[in-house]
Structures are given as C-alpha cells and as structure tokens.
C-alpha cells in the first residue's frame, strides 16, 4: 500500500488516533550522559508486549535516505543496535519482546518483491552511472574527490532478503545483542525475547500476527494484554485491528513532523560531504520524533463510523471491523494490483465504505466471517462500485486536467512576475523585501500642493512602456494571487488567499516538502527512466492516453491494449479468468490476515486487475487452497533477485541467472517494460516481468544442492524461533535443568506464569557454559563477550493452531474512552469532504493519553440502567449536579450533567471533560434529561405494572437516538 497516503488519510479522518511519543531525556552529569533507565516507569503508559518488524529498522539503518550510510555491514549492525535500543526505551515492554525478520515469503508476495528488486537493481545501476558522471564533472572543474568515494560502490539493498550472507550476519548480531541486553540491562530482568529471524518462513508482520493469534488460543491468556508493534508499514494498523486485541498501538517515526529538515540526500551532496554536515545530519537523525497510533482509539472511531441502524442481523463491532479491514486492503495490498477505479488518494476507501453502509441492511450477514468471504456480498458491493466506475474515471481525468492547467498558469505568472521583479528591483537599494512590485501598488502619490511625489518607483516612462506587456498581465491577475506570489518569492512559505489557485499552490508546495518513504522517487515518471542514460534497458510505456478511461468504451480498449489482442472471445476468456483469480486473491489475502497463510504457492498470474463491472456470477467460483510448503531461502532468492544481485547467492547458482544456456534464463530478463498505468510516481509503475514457473525453477535449483558447502546448506534451512530468557525469569531454573540433564523433551508452557504460551525445548547449538563472542568488526567499548550463564536460549514453537475467531475475549476490560460526543458527531454528520481540508495531521500535544492506555476500571461491563452500581452512580451524579447551582461555566455543567444525559444510557465512562461544545449539547441534553427524569428516575409509579415496564423498555429501543444506535 502507498504507505504515506494511507497513513495520511487515516490521521486526517480520525485525528485523535495519533499521539506523540514522550521520550525520557538522558540525564547529563558533567560531560557524561547517563543512559536512560529502562526500569523506570514509562511516561507513555506501561506496555506488556512489543513486536518489532525488523525490516522497518534494517532498511533505514543500512541505506538511510537523509544521512550518509554506514561504511561496512558491521557498522550497519551497530547502527541497528542503537536504533533498536532507542525504540525499546520508548516502548519498554515488560513481559515479551518479539523480533521478527522477514523470512521466506509466500509466493503471492514474491512477485511484488521480485518487481521491486529488479527495479531497484536498475535504479542502482543508473544511480551509479550518475554518480560517476558527477565525479567526472567535478573533477573537470578542478575539485579533488576523495579516493574512497571514487571507488565506492553503493551497497546493494537487495541483500535484505532471506538466505543472503547479510541476513546471516544480522541473525547472529541480533542474538548477540539480545544476550547482551539480558545480561546487562536491569530493566530487561524479567523480559522474554523471541527472535524469529530470516530462517523462519513467513513475512515478519505475519509471523507476529500468527504469534498473537496463537497466544489468544491459550485459556490462561490475559485478555487485557497491552501490545505495541513497531514498523513503518501501514499494514500494521490493519493487522492490529485484525487481531481483535483492543489494547493495541503502533509505534512509528513521525515522517510528517513540521520541524523536520528531511531533505532527501541527492547524489551531488553525497559526493563531497564534509565532516560538519555529516555530523549535523547524524545528530538531526537522532532526534527525529516518533508517534503512537492507538488502535484502541481507532476502534472507538470505527464503532461510530461503522454503526448502521436497521440491520437485519445483529450489529457486531468485531465483524464490522473485519469488513472494514477487508475493504481497506481491497483498495491496496501487496499481493494483487488494485482495481483501476480504487485508489487511496482518490478516497477509494471512503467510496467502498459508503457502498458497504448502503448495501449491508439488505444483506443477510457481514461480508466476511473469520476470514471467509461471502461472495454474494462481494458481488453486490462490486456491482454498486461498477455503477460509479465511469464517473470516477471521468472525475479523475478532469481533476488532472485542472491541475495541469493550474500548473501551467502558475508557471506563467511566475515568469511574468520574475520579469517585472528583475526590472523594478534594479531601482531599489534598500528594503528589497518590502518593495512593491505590482504596478498597482506603485502608484505614486502626488501632493497637490507641493507637487512632490512619494512612493512609487523610479521607473522611467520608457522602461514602463518596454515592459508594458508583463506589467499589464500582472495587473490583470487577481490581486490576491499577486500577494501570494510575492510572498512566495521572498519567503518560500505557505500563504493564504484565493481558494482555487492557492490550493493548487499549497498542494504542490506540500508535495515538494514531503519527506518521503524509502522507495518513493520524486522525479516525473518517464523522465526518471529515459532521461540521461543511453543504455536505457527498460522501456517505459504509458497506455493512459490510448485507453482513455474517461471515455466510454474504455473497458474494451483496456483489455485490448494490456493483452495485445482484439479477439473478443479471447478477451472474454481472459476477463473471466482474471476475475476468478482476483476473487481467489482477495480470499487468499483475507485468510492470510485472519487465519494465517492458506497457501504458500498461490499467486495472482496477471499484472493487471479487472474492472469492478466484471465481477459477476461470483457464486460460481469455488475458492480452495492447497497449503503447500514454503520455499527454501535460496529458492526464494532465485525467484526474486535479478542477475545483478547474484553476488548474494552461492556461486553455483550465479550462472543459472546469467548464462545464456541456463534452463531458467528467461526468468531473468535484463530489459523489461514498465507500464505506468496512469500512475504519477516512478515507483508505482508495473514491471512487466515474466511469472516464474515454480516446478521448473525448483527442479533446476535443487539439482545444484549437492554442490553447496556446509555453511551454505546451513543458510538454506528453515528453522524454529528462539526464546531468550534472563536469570530472573521464572522458568530459568527449570529450563536450565533440561540442559543439564540433556532432556530433549518438549515442555508446554501456559500463559499464567509469564504471559507466554507455547512449546519449548533445548537447542543443539547452545551451551550454557560457553561464551558468546562479540564478532562485529567495529571497535567499541560498549560491547564485549558474554558468558552464557547470564541468559538462556531455547527453541520455541507456537501452540497448536486453532481456528481463530473475530471476537473479544472474556474478561476484557475496555480502556477509558477518549472520544467526546463532538468527535463522534463529526464522524457521523460531517460530509466526506470535510476532513480533506483538515490539513492538520500533526500529532497533538494537548491531550494526555496516558490514562487512556490499557484496561480501565474493575469490570468488563459498561454501566447500564437497572443495575445496583448504576443506580447508586446515577444517584450520586444527580446529587452532585443538583448541589451545584451551575453558573454558565463549561466545566461544572459538563461534569454533572453530561455524564448521564449525554451518552444516552449506555456509556458512563465518558467523563465529559473535553466536552467544550456546550451550546451544541444544550438542546440535546434537555431532550434526554426530560425523558430520563420523568420516565425513569423520579417517577416510580410507572413501574408498578408489569406490562408497562415491558412496553416502556421496548419503546426506548424504537425511539431514534441520534448517534446512539445500541438500543
């Protein structure tokens, strides 16, 4: 998914889900910085489990975007240690830390990995050429270039794939680092660490999902466990929702922070960077802020967003959330190309959710159930989307046209103003910023009495005449626009003004200032690939103009162009097969999220997606998956790496990728087409690589296994996860005994003791009496060899797989609710476009999130009318509100009154503190107050008869309660 796009969309629509991470500053005593104490209470609230999606750390540490990269792989490891330490000090999990590195992925994901790596290899080659050119240029100008930089080849980021030597170094380094921390950091005393490195098959984030799901199946699991996952992927938010663990949050870097001077380093800068700049960039990098994304509060928002009245079946928030997650990844996921009409930037998710809300009352059940798709429902959804498809394409086209026009116009105006400026400013000696450059402002004031002139510029008449064209054009332009442009020219900041022009200006400016995620490149599409190098191997095509999605008949043109055929029957066949595969694909993805990988070998065999209108007769499709087995690491490497990255593989395989007579050489083209498919950014183009034939590849690769060295064979095996414990852990002594008696039996542990459930057994390679050496080739006084008696390592396996259910666990106690009635009403009543203008998706500093973290109160039930505690509570509230004759002060009125009136009857947890919109609530309160007092509390007569009681309660159900459809 487009990471920044989705994250931005979410934080704009649901602003309160984001909060800044409060980091403890290290105390500086004299010159020495005392390290942050892990065992101190966490200013952000306490946390049980932390999960690290390690790839989100390895990538930025090994090839960072805005600072110079580490020189050697060993230095990258040290950098990873430092960064992970920082993340851990922010989160401070007390029970469990899980480090998950991407292992061998399912085939469905490999295609995307393949296209990324092929493209990245090509980009690297281009970049290398560019670098050499720059060096040459500078040398010709007489600059001296450091020899080190000249000979340096930039590091191949494709090494971050399971099975490469780099990943092996990473695995060993992680083990070292964990042992080091367990042995030396007192805050880690009772922490349990599970490392799931690249030898354990599965994507990092999904290994984490599987783990959480497996823990939930243990009856002794604590339903109020607080979780946090670190990672940059927007998928993590959906994974958090899909676990149905309500106390969940996501930790990530704040890439949108205002004071971030996050410029992407250009090649030119890197060529001859001096030490001072280097240090400055490193220092800035240390301080970059992080964010929490609270899934618990997102659930609060979704409870309001997805609540549909008049359903023919029960409203179940967990099922509704599953449907929402499904619709979100329908719009963009890693396994399937997204439908042409759905795009996050176009509010694709909103469109789908709208349709879903309209369609659901007529359906018998939700779209999804524990990961299974209701194909009938999907068909209904698609048919509604199909009706909108034409319009979506047309609007998109019009929007683009408009933007282009505005761009052109703005450019022209800028040129004109520049000309005027150049002319006029020649005459200004002082105060260039304040100089009025618009002739309308340059009207000289002539004193009538003395004939003196004031103001104005000393422009001779001839000069004015010479520039009359530009001046008059400038005059004709809207005065406000002129203001903006002037300010923009002088200050380079955003400004206010005329809506349409400004919004264009603003958008463009923001896009330029946006710090971007790892793989985005800011050059325009075709220019990126075809500009400089003559050896342009790939041909970038863009079929947008020939398909013309905004004109009727686009469907036929689409299929004709993409599949290069005009035979209608063939197209029909392709279309049907595409739809069938796509339905399989979304079923696969859904199961992948909710139950675990359904098939390691399934993949979507096309580069494009069908149109929504093609999704007909879906109930004829039978979706079945064969589990299959994951590839081995080298097999995956062969499937995703281009020939240029062959150095990551053992030597025996390299000829298979480059020799012309290799049986599988057709899998490694050096020239391939990239289809922009209407997208703007370079990285969004689709690489038209041939799909790998699994049987052929595996056969050829496996023939070479006998030639591998022992070390290589080791790198090629899939293993179990490893559990690390410190001496203070409750199981330490028990497990140590197993080592001493060499007992290979599997021990089953339950969650009661330490919060971890699963199967544990001793590791062959671990010797409790040995030492773990510090192997990295980086001089340091911080890291040293560790004796193995300070910690323990065991092999770990998850508990047996159980069919997972999307339900809350018994004993779950909700957090203290954060959203006020005003927030909720904003979701229900505002139009879709409202939040688009809410540019402010910065993290807020005014709300204290700490009381809203984790379970609150002592019961799992919300207070409702009729109970003992609730009666007493209401009595106390009323006494309080009657005791104070409230002056027109917001705080008092809100405290007493709003508690039991505002929320209807169900939710007493909203303290009404933030309810500053008194006027808005007043009418609402009176309405509720009247009913409540008259009918329920003060008037007991009405309850004498049995029938009245029953009727009364039923009445309350049918009375429409604004925004509160729980009854």
């Amino acid at each position, binding site marked *: 998914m487009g990471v920044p796009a989705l994250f931005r969309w979410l934080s704009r629509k649901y602003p309160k889900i984001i909060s800044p991470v409060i980091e403890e500053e290290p105390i500086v005593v004299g010159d020495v910085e005392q390290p942050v104490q892990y065992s101190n209470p966490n200013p952000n609230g306490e946390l049980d489990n932390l999960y690290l999606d390690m790839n989100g750390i390895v990538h930025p540490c090994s090839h960072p975007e805005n600072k110079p990269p580490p020189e050697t792989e060993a230095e990258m490891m040290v950098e990873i240690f430092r960064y992970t330490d920082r993340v851990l000090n922010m989160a401070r999990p007390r029970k469990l830390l899980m480090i998950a590195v991407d292992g061998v992925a399912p085939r469905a994901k490999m295609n995307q990995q393949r296209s990324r790596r092929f493209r990245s290899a090509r980009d690297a080659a281009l970049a290398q050429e560019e670098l050499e050119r720059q060096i040459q240029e500078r040398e010709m100008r007489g600059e001296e270039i450091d020899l080190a930089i000249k000979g340096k080849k930039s590091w191949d980021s494709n090494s971050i794939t399971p099975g490469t030597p780099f990943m092996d170094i990473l695995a060993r380094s992680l083990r070292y680092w964990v042992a080091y921390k367990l042995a030396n950091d007192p805050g880690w005393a009772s922490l349990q660490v599970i490392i799931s490195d690249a030898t354990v098959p599965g994507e990092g984030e999904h290994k984490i999902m599987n783990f959480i799901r497996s823990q939930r199946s243990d*009856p002794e699991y604590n339903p109020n466990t607080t979780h946090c996952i670190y990672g940059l992927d927007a998928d993590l938010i959906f994974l958090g929702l899909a676990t149905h663990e309500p106390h969940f949050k996501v930790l990530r870097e704040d890439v949108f922070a205002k004071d971030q001077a996050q410029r992407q380093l250009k090649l030119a800068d890197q060529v001859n960077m001096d030490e001072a700049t280097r240090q400055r960039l490193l220092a800035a990098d240390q301080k970059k802020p992080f964010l929490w994304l609270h899934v618990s509060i997102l659930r609060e928002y979704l409870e309001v967003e997805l609540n549909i009245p008049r359903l023919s079946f029960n409203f179940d928030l967990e099922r509704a959330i599953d449907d929402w997650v499904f619709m979100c990844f329908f719009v963009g996921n890693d396994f399937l190309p997204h439908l042409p009409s759905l795009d996050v930037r176009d509010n694709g998710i909103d469109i789908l959710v709208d349709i879903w809300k309209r369609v659901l009352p007529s359906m018998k059940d939700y779209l999804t159930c524990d990961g299974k798709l209701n194909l009938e429902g999907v068909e209904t959804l698609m048919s509604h989307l199909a009706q909108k498809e034409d319009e979506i394409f047309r609007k998109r086209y019009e929007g683009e046209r408009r933007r282009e026009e505005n761009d052109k116009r703005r450019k022209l105006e800028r040129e004109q103003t520049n000309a005027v400026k150049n002319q006029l400013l020649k005459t200004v000696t002082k105060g260039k910023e304040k100089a009025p450059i618009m002739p309308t402002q340059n009207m000289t004031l002539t004193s009538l009495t003395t004939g003196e002139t004031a103001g104005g510029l000393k422009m001779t008449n001839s000069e004015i005449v010479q520039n009359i064209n530009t001046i008059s054009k400038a005059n004709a332009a809207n005065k406000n626009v002129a203001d903006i442009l002037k300010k923009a020219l002088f200050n380079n900041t955003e400004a206010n003004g005329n809506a349409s022009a400004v919004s264009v200006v603003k958008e463009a400016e923001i896009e330029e200032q946006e710090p971007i995620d790892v793989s985005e490149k800011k050059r325009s599409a075709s220019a990126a690939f075809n500009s400089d190098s003559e050896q342009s191997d790939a041909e970038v095509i863009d079929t947008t103009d020939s398909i013309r999605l905004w004109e009727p008949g686009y469907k036929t043109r689409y299929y004709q162009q993409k599949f290069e055929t005009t035979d209608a029957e063939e197209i029909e066949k392709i279309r049907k097969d595409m739809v069938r595969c796509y339905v399989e694909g979304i079923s696969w993805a859904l199961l992948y999220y909710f139950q675990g990988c359904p098939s390691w070998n399934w993949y979507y065999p096309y580069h494009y997606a069908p149109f929504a209108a093609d999704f007909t007769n879906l109930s004829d499709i039978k979706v079945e998956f064969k589990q299959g087995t994951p590839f081995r690491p080298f097999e995956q490497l062969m499937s995703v790496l281009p020939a240029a990255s062959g150095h990551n593989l053992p030597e025996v395989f390299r000829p298979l990728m480059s020799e012309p007579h290799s049986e599988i050489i057709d899998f490694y083209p050096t020239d391939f087409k990239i289809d922009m498919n209407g997208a703007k950014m370079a990285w969004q183009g689709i690489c038209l690589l041939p799909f790998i034939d699994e049987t052929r590849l595996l056969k050829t690769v496996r023939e070479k296994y006998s030639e591998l060295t022992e070390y290589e064979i080791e790198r090629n095996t899939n293993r179990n996860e490893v559990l690390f414990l410190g001496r203070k852990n409750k199981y330490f002594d028990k497990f140590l005994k197993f080592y001493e008696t060499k007992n290979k039996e599997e021990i089953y542990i339950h969650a009661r003791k330490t919060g971890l459930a699963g199967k544990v057994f001793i590791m062959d390679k671990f010797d409790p009496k040995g030492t773990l050496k510090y192997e990295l080739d980086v001089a340091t006084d911080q890291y040293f060899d560790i004796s193995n008696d300070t910690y323990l390592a065991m092999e770990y396996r998850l508990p047996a797989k*159980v069919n997972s259910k999307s339900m*809350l666990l018994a004993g779950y106690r909700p957090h203290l609710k954060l959203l006020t009635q005003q927030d909720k009403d904003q979701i229900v009543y505002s139009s879709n476009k409202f939040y688009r203008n809410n540019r402010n998706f910065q993290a807020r500093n005014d709300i204290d999130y700490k009381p809203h973290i984790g379970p609150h109160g002592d019961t799992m*039930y919300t207070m409702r009318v*009729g*109970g003992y505690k609730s*009666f007493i509570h209401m009595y106390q509230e009323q006494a309080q509100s009657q005791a104070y004759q409230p002056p027109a002060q917001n705080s008092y009125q809100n405290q007493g009154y709003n508690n039991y009136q505002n929320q209807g009857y169900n939710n007493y947890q909203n303290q009404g503190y933030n309810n500053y919109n008194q006027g808005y609530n007043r009418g609402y309160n009176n309405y509720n107050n009247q009913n409540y007092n008259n009918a329920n509390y003060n008037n*007991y007569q009405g309850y004498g008869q049995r029938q009245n*009681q029953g009727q009364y*309660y039923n009445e309350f159900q049918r009375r429409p309660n604004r925004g509160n459809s729980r009854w």
Partner: protein
Amino acid sequence: MEFSKVYPLQSRAQDASVKQPKELISYSRDIEGQYRVDDSQLSYFYLPDSQLNVPGGIDLQAGFKDFRANGEDFGEFTGLLAALEAYERKIGAKTPANIITWRGLMRSLMLLPFVNRDRIVLNIVVFDGQIFIQQDFQNAREAAELEKLTQSDLNKRQIYSGYKFEKIATLSKPWAQCSRKEIEQRNKLPVNNIEQYATVVKTSFGKTGLVMGAEVDCVFDYKPEDADPLPHYVELKTTRVLDSPQAVFSFENKLLKFWAQCFLVGIPKIICGFRDDNLILRTVEEYKTEQIPVMIKNNPLPNRHPSKNKFMQSLKFFNGLINWINETIPRDETKTYRLVFDPAVNPNYLNLSENNATVTNQLLDPETGMISKAFRDWRNELRSK
C-alpha cells in the same frame, strides 16, 4: 434423659476466625444424573459486554417449555461422598474435618439472625468420628409441595431464567476450542438443572474443621492444574432490575445471601444479571465477594432502616453455632440428631434434639441411609489398614 439443647439466635462468638477455604476435589453430575469424580461438567464463563447491546435484548424465558427439571433433589450425599472417597484414596487418609455437609445448609444457618422466615430441619449423623449434616427430606418435601401450590407461572419462569442465564453466559469448553456457531447459538440450547459441577471445600471456623460440598456455576477463565482453583470460580445470579430505592434495599438483602454463599467456599466473584419484567436481560454487573460489605456500607441512598453490620454478625453467629454443634453432639454412632429452627414455634432459638427410632433407623440404614454403602465400605477398608 432426653437430649435437648437450644441455641439462641442472639448468640455471637467472640470473633469470627475463619481459615481460607481450599478445594479438596471436584466432581460432576451429567444429564442422566450420574456422578463422576472429574471436571466433565466444568463450564467457562463467556458473556461479552457487546452481547448485551443486541436489539431486543437477550430473552431469558426462551425455551421455557423445554426445560428439563431435576426430580427430587434434597441433598443426598451420593456425589459428595464419592468425591470424598476419591480424595481420601489419593491422600491415603481420612479427611481431617469435624463436620461434613452442604454449603447451602450452612448458609441458611449462617443467616438465621436476619433471614428467619422459613422452617429449617436438619438431620445429624455421626459416622466414623465425624458429623454429617443433611436436610430432613420429609420436611423439605413438604415445603417444596407447598411452594408448588403457591407458585405462579411467572415465578416458574423467573426460576427458569436463572438457569437460562447460566446457559447463555457459559461455554462447555474453553473459548478457543469452541466454534463461532457454538458461541452464537447458545440461546437455542436446551436448559436443565441436572448437569452440575460441584466442588468439595475444606475450611474451618474457630476450632471446627468444616468440609462442604457446593455447586459451582462456572470458572471465569481457566481452572489451574497445580494451584487452588477457588479464586477462579464465579457465581452467576439473576434478579430483577432495580428501579427504585426500595428495590435497591431489597437487593442488598439478596446481596447478603450471595455474599454468605460465596464467602463460605471462597468464591471471589459474583456476576449478576438484571432482567426486567418481560424477562429480558438488561444489564450485568460484577461484584467482588469481599467488596460487598464495603459497597453496602457506602450506599449513599437515604435509608430508613440502616442495618448494623450484618456480615460480621452472621460470621460471629455462625462461628459460635458451628463450634457449639461440634462440641455438643456426642460421638455416639447409634443415635441421630435433629437441629430445628421453627419460626412458628420459637423464633429466637434453634433446637437440637435426638431423633426418634423410626427416623434414626432410616438415617442409619447401611444401604439407603445418609452414608452411602460405598463410603462405609471405604472407611472400613481405611480403618483396617
């Protein structure tokens, strides 16, 4: 001399020294009424808050017609003694206790100073040096028949709603092992009060060791294998919604009963469902047993009849009573005794007297008496070892 003693309801012991109850063993009764010393009928609590938001509410009288009621069950010792035997076989010795009985009987004794409308008749048998206390079946039968006559249809449904609540709030297997369908279709399951899971708990009041059998509704999360399971048990109750201060006060009386019931066997949590007059479940609340006295004390509603500390009083009364029984009853295995409280005759005293010959013979019959044959044989076996 005719043995006859009285014990005043006003009497209080000096203190209420109670030992923390511990579970000895548990047993189950299946749908056929067969007893088994295992956890087969153990159920797990599962009723999330969101289920109470279902439109229309949860109907607690659904399935009333299919209710399978237990026949006469006045508290025979079959299951309890079978479980005790299994426990004693495990530890290879006699259970170290002075009195062996049912929790329900002890509860009614404990609350006598405050709840004293009904007649209580208990039979006491001495066997193998221990005192066994059971309800008098004759009396119980008469009381039950009387109740049946005065019971209206609504009353029957209200009683049914209690069992129904237990059914819809629990699962027969841990949550992770149940399918979605099983969890969502619980309101369609037939309800009965034959299936039962019971625990045998040992505690002591003052110098008297007391073993009680008690039915347990469900376990909150899981039953631990190697630790005391009592802290995990939950008692489920239903009652009418509270809509007036009077209702609140009468509920507090009920809370006293709940408290006594759970306190005796060390069950820490009570979950109470409130149903309206249409028997729709409206709200559910959780209480910690030890918090109940505090809750009632802190009740701010203006009370015309403020109560003295009923909890402490009951404990002290019971402490005195149970020790008195232990001391007074001679360990004569040929005689049986009767403890009677009859408000019609004398509302201030409990009466302890010997049973007549007929009743004694009935109770001491080796085949059909209070002590089951299997248990008698077992104790003989134990004695001869």
